[in-house]
């Protein structure tokens, strides 16, 4: 079973936009984001509406940065964390765009980009937009406790970010290319603690990364940056251990968006989580660095914990899923880039 596919026509991210809340704006990547909101409500009545407005701004921002109009967009691929992914579908309603809703929890950015790349690479669509986001306050009330409840967070907990990101994919234009995607399996190592998402997701990230290297014959050193989504401090440490057991050694070029999202002073325990983490980091920091040519090739692996409050209350463990995509700087000279032969996977 082949999980990695290569995109010969090299779809490009021709427009990208990121929008975050004030706390996120004060974090490590603050200067790279396109827009920092002044408060979490964003001038709306409810946090759900604020999340939707943020989502809409991300989508319009990405489209206009690509130099296009909504009329030129053929399809929107999006997902979020709320029940029935309302932020995405309500945004699609307001733009009246053809729409595919996707749910991969916090791995949604890679899921939408990978499927989007398949569709663009196949020549079925000219331009499409991929988007995802999350909001601290909507996620807290859906998955955890009311905001004003005076409880303490456990050391393994993570902070759901208020952030959204969108990318416009096309074959025409300039921007980082998506050259490969590895679709991940759902992996569950029996973690039950909903406050320990990093440990629940790390095995799925390890599985996807292992499969990617195995099928492509590449090594971690072939990338300038290997970046996972929101494993957090603990999850990232576990991932390094798990991969070492499988014979893959991640070097200093490995990093986790969730772990590095906030500064130490911001007191978020194990770091950041939520769809918005990987979406906002990809559509700001990573795309900008690739466009400047400061980094050439990135392996981007957002990680998702496929939990539901109902299943967790019934004592079920938390499955994880991670998809990997390879992003390369758009270099006109190397258009004849050597295509990598994907070898059949070795047996474990």
């Amino acid at each position, binding site marked *: 079973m082949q999980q990695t596919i290569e995109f010969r026509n090299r779809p490009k991210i021709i427009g990208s936009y990121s929008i975050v809340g004030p706390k996120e704006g004060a974090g490590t990547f603050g200067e790279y984001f396109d827009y920092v909101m002044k408060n979490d409500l964003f001038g709306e*009545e*409810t946090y759900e509406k604020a999340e939707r407005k943020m989502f809409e701004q991300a989508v319009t921002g990405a489209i206009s940065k690509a130099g296009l109009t909504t009329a030129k967009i053929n399809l929107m691929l999006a997902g979020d964390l709320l029940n029935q992914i309302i932020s995405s579908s309500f945004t699609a309603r307001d733009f009246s765009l053809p729409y595919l809703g996707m749910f991969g929890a916090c791995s949604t950015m890679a899921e939408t980009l990978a499927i989007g790349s398949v569709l663009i690479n196949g020549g079925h669509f000219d331009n499409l937009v991929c988007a995802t986001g999350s909001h601290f306050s909507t996620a807290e*009330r859906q998955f955890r*406790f*009311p*905001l*004003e*409840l*005076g*409880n*303490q*967070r*456990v*050391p*393994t907990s993570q902070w759901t970010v208020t952030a959204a990101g969108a990318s416009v994919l096309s074959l025409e234009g300039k921007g980082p290319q998506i050259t490969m995607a590895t679709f991940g399996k759902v992996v*569950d*190592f*029996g*973690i039950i603690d909903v406050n*320990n998402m990093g*440990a629940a997701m790390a*095995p799925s990230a390890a599985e996807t990364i292992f499969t990617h290297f195995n099928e492509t014959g590449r090594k971690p050193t072939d990338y300038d940056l290997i970046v996972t989504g929101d494993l957090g401090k*603990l999850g990232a*440490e*576990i991932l390094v*251990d798990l991969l070492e057991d499988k014979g893959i050694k991640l070097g200093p070029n490995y990093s986790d968006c969730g772990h590095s999202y906030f500064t130490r002073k911001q007191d978020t325990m194990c770091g950041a989580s939520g769809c918005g983490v990987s979406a906002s980091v990809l559509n700001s920091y990573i795309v900008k660095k690739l466009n400047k040519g400061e980094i050439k090739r990135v392996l981007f692996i957002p990680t998702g914990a496929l939990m539901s409050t109902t299943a967790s209350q019934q004592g079920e*463990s938390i499955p994880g899923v991670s998809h990997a995509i390879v992003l390369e700087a758009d270099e006109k000279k190397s258009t004849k880039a050597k295509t990598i032969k994907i070898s059949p996977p070795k047996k474990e």
Partner: protein
Amino acid sequence: MKQEKRNQAYNQYVEARIPKTKPWPSLFNSFWVGGLICVLGQGIDELILYIFPYMSQQSAWTWTLIVLIFLASFLTGIGVYDKIGKFAGGGSIVPITGFSNSIASPAIEFKHEGIIYGTCVKMFSIAGPVIVVGVVASIVVGLVYYFVGLI
């Protein structure tokens, strides 16, 4: 079977890696904040008896509870109690002020879903179990008391 073993080993490995909280600083903070809330309660009680000298001790206690519950709800409403709770943990959860906070916070949070389906339904989502256990326990104690009295 093999999978179960793998999961068990993984859970053990994760357990060993989890960063531990330092118990002494958090115990100390919850001790002095909890104690302070109790001192405050005592103060309110004495103040009530000072202003209304003919009030019985029983009613003064009731009024003290009402004042504490009001204060905690008020602090929840203006967004202060969650900060106290983050600092003090059990110290501000165990006294009656914590109970007040656990009812006021979901009531505020879910007001956008409407008075009935939001505020009224969700108000007891955290404190509900405490109330149920309290009522059941008092029934059991009442029955025991009744039958012991018969003998």
